[in-house]
């Protein structure tokens, strides 16, 4: 499983950055998720895709982390759906490397970018994305549309215009 996890690292880091919006936090999250996957390998159903299982672990760890931060900040318990909306702030890092396309994607709100990544890139169905991101299927559909619409608008902007 280690070899498979290492081969999966670029995709896991991309997914984690979509949530954390921070390079270093994403790498910490990916490392924690991989270690948890190794420690819970006996729970893995080999008839299912390994990447989906590890993505789920990654997502759950991040939601758990956000909840802990909220409690530390005195904001009490928050439901998973709201936790998934939260991202780290003021990390001083750029989550995505430079590049026009990446800039446009990075400019998307985290909740839109993640749905786009899950469905349009990773090939999740709406139901699977809903389960992964812990949001209703209808929300997947509406966010996906908003994400595409925002990117389409960005594409329609004249060159050198507002990013």
């Amino acid at each position, binding site marked *: 499983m280690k070899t498979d996890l290492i081969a999966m690292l670029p995709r896991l*880091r991309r997914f984690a950055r979509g949530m954390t919006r921070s390079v270093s936090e994403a790498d*910490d999250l990916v490392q924690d998720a991989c270690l948890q996957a190794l420690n819970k390998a006996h729970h893995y159903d080999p008839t299912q895709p390994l990447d989906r299982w590890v993505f789920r672990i990654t997502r759950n760890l991040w939601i758990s982390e956000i909840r802990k931060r909220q409690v530390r900040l005195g904001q009490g318990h928050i439901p998973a759906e709201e936790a998934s909306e939260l991202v780290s702030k003021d990390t001083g890092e750029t989550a995505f*490397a430079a590049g026009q396309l990446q800039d446009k994607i990075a400019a998307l709100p985290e909740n839109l970018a993640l749905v786009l990544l899950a469905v349009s890139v990773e090939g999740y169905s709406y139901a699977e994305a809903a389960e992964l991101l812990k949001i209703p299927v209808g929300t997947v*559909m509406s966010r996906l*549309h908003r*994400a*595409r*619409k925002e*990117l*389409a608008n960005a594409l329609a902007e004249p060159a050198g215009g507002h990013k």
Partner: protein
Amino acid sequence: MKVTEEQLSAYLDGELPSKDMEMVDAALQEDANLQAQLDALMAADAMAQSGFAEMLKDPVPLALADAIRSAQPVEARPNDVMAANINARPKTPLWMGLAAAIALAVGGVGGYFTGFAQAPVQVAEAPAWLLDIADYHRIYSTQTRHLVEVGADEADHIETWLTATLGAEVRVANLSSHNLRFEGARLLVAAGKPVAQLLYTASDGSVIALCLIQSDEPNSGFKARNLGGFDMVSWGGAGANFVLVGDEGRSDLGVIAETAALDV
């Protein structure tokens, strides 16, 4: 019935009920504006896919891959396991610690490590000569009788010969503190330039190579890579770029590079 943009987006994913898919199909035949909207969403999707694909090229920190490679799953209660692993893992990449140590050791003598603190060492895109070095290492590291071209008993000659050939000072680094024995050297050609390859063996027979190539603009900072199935740590020195090459998964390559950087 009017097709909403949200439905159009779901149509793109094949996620509408079959009745609605047919309805959108029919509407697209008749409505050029709707087709234009779909085209715009498809273009956005293509842009997203390209942009996300670009992110996969971002180099993976070697420390992250190492942490997973060297992880020891423990049979224990889940909470204990996670806590143990999280506490055990290096929060700061190994290479950052290495950089700090070397920067302290050589600071002020050459400035070779300028900027390292700002630029974390990563599995970065490889310069052309390192690709050749990986190929050479794959072949020569399996040699026993013919591992080197000139043996270690002619160390002085190796230094004179390779310094003259490369146009950069070649010194045989003493890596005995890492239980590495200097076996000798070879002259290679990589990226069209002469390269010195100093070969060392460990007690288990594994081979580590220290290679250098003349450069008018040596690299700043250390970079760790996995290339062609080998781990590498490269850095710049006086008039040359250096790279230390070893088997994938060697946990000691960083500290050996630290010694080598101070001794060449």
